[in-house]
C-alpha cells in the first residue's frame, strides 16, 4: 500500500507554508530531486533505515536457521539422488553389482526409503543372491509400498515361493 502518506506528513502547522521544494518531514529546502516525493537526504535515509521489531528479528533468525538446516542436507540429498539414478541405469543395463553399491549409498542417507530398499532387493535377486534379496525385501513385507515397485516385489516373492514350493 505505498500510496498512503503517513499521518505526521499532513500534520504540518497551519500557519507555516512549506514550499513544494521543501522536505515534507523537516521542512529544510534541500530535497533530493530525482524523487517525486519531496524529502531531504537525511529524512529519506532515516526513514529507509527503519528498525525491525524484536519479534520480527526472532522470526527472521528462525527462518535463517531453517535455511541453514536445509542447506546442511543438500550434499547428502544430491549425492543420494545421483547414486539412485546411477543405480537405476546399472540395474537396467544388468550390472547388478554396481546397482547394489549405488542403492546402498542411497540407504546410508535414507535408510527407510521403500524405493531404494525395493530396488536393492530386486538387484540382489536378479544378481543371483536370493537370500540377501529375501532379507532386504522382507523389510517391505506388508507395507503400503509405492506402485512403481510393488508389482516387481510381489513378482519376486511369488517366484521365490514357487521355487521353494510354498503355496
Amino acid at each position, binding site marked *: *500500500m*505505498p*500510496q*498512503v*502518506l*503517513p499521518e505526521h*506528513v499532513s500534520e504540518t502547522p497551519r500557519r507555516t507554508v512549506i514550499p513544494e521544494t521543501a522536505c515534507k518531514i523537516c521542512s529544510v529546502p534541500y530535497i533530493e530531486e*530525482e*524523487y*517525486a*516525493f519531496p*524529502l531531504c537526504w537525511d*529524512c*529519506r*535515509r532515516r*526513514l*529507509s*533505515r*527503519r528498525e*525491525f*521489531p524484536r519479534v*520480527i528479528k526472532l*522470526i*527472521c533468525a528462525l*527462518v535463517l536457521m*531453517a*535455511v541453514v*538446516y*536445509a*542447506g546442511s*542436507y*543438500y550434499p547428502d*540429498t544430491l549425492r*543420494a*539422488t*545421483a547414486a*539412485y*539414478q546411477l543405480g537405476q541405469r546399472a540395474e537396467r543395463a544388468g550390472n547388478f553389482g554396481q546397482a547394489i553399491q549405488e542403492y546402498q549409498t*542411497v540407504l546410508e542417507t*535414507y535408510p*527407510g*526409503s*521403500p*524405493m*531404494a530398499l525395493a530396488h536393492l532387493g530386486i538387484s540382489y535377486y536378479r544378481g543371483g543372491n536370493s537370500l540377501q534379496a529375501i532379507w532386504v525385501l522382507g523389510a517391505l513385507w506388508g507395507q503400503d509400498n*509405492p506402485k512403481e515397485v510393488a508389482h516387481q516385489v510381489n513378482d519376486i516373492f511369488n517366484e521365490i515361493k514357487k521355487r521353494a514350493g510354498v503355496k
Partner: protein
Amino acid sequence: MDLAIPSQIVALLTFPGVVAHEVVEQLFCRWLGVAVFDVCYFRFGNPPGYVTHEPNLPMRQSLLLGLGTFFVNSLLGALVAFPAVLPALEFRVSTVQGYVLAWLGISIAAHALPNGAGAVILWRTVWSRQCPLVTRLLATPLAGLVLIASVGRIIGLDLLYGIAVVAAPPVLLLLILR
C-alpha cells in the same frame, strides 16, 4: 469482503511467508534508500501485511522493489524446501522436519507475489514512458503474470504458485538426471 476469506485463511496458515515478504520488501527499501512510512508484518486483513513506502518512485527503484521481492522470496522458498521435496519425490521418504521445511518453503514462495497495489504499480512502471524498450519487453510477461496472480489470490492462486515454485526445481533436476 467475503471473497477475501480464503486468502486470509491462506495467510494465517502461511504466516512466515507474510513476514518474510514484508521483511524482504523493507530490506529492499533500505538498500535502495526508499523512505518507509509504515510497516505491518502480519494482520488478519487484506492484505495480510504491507510496507507503506514513498509513492511515485523512479523507475529503477520501482522495478527492483516489485520484482526483487518476488525473486528473492521465490528463491528462498525453493531453497528451503528443496532437500525435503526431492527425497519425497524420488525415494518416497517423508519426515517431520521434511514436512516443516516444505511448509516453510511453500509459505515463503506463496507470498512472493506482490499484493494488488504492488502489482498494479509494477505494471504501470513497466508501461511508463521512462521504461526502456528492452526492459519493457523483458518485464512485461513477468509483470502481467504477477498482476494476474495477485488478482487470483482470492481463489488461492498464490498458494498454487508456492507449491509450483517448491516442486519445480526437484522435478526439473530429476528430469535432467533421467
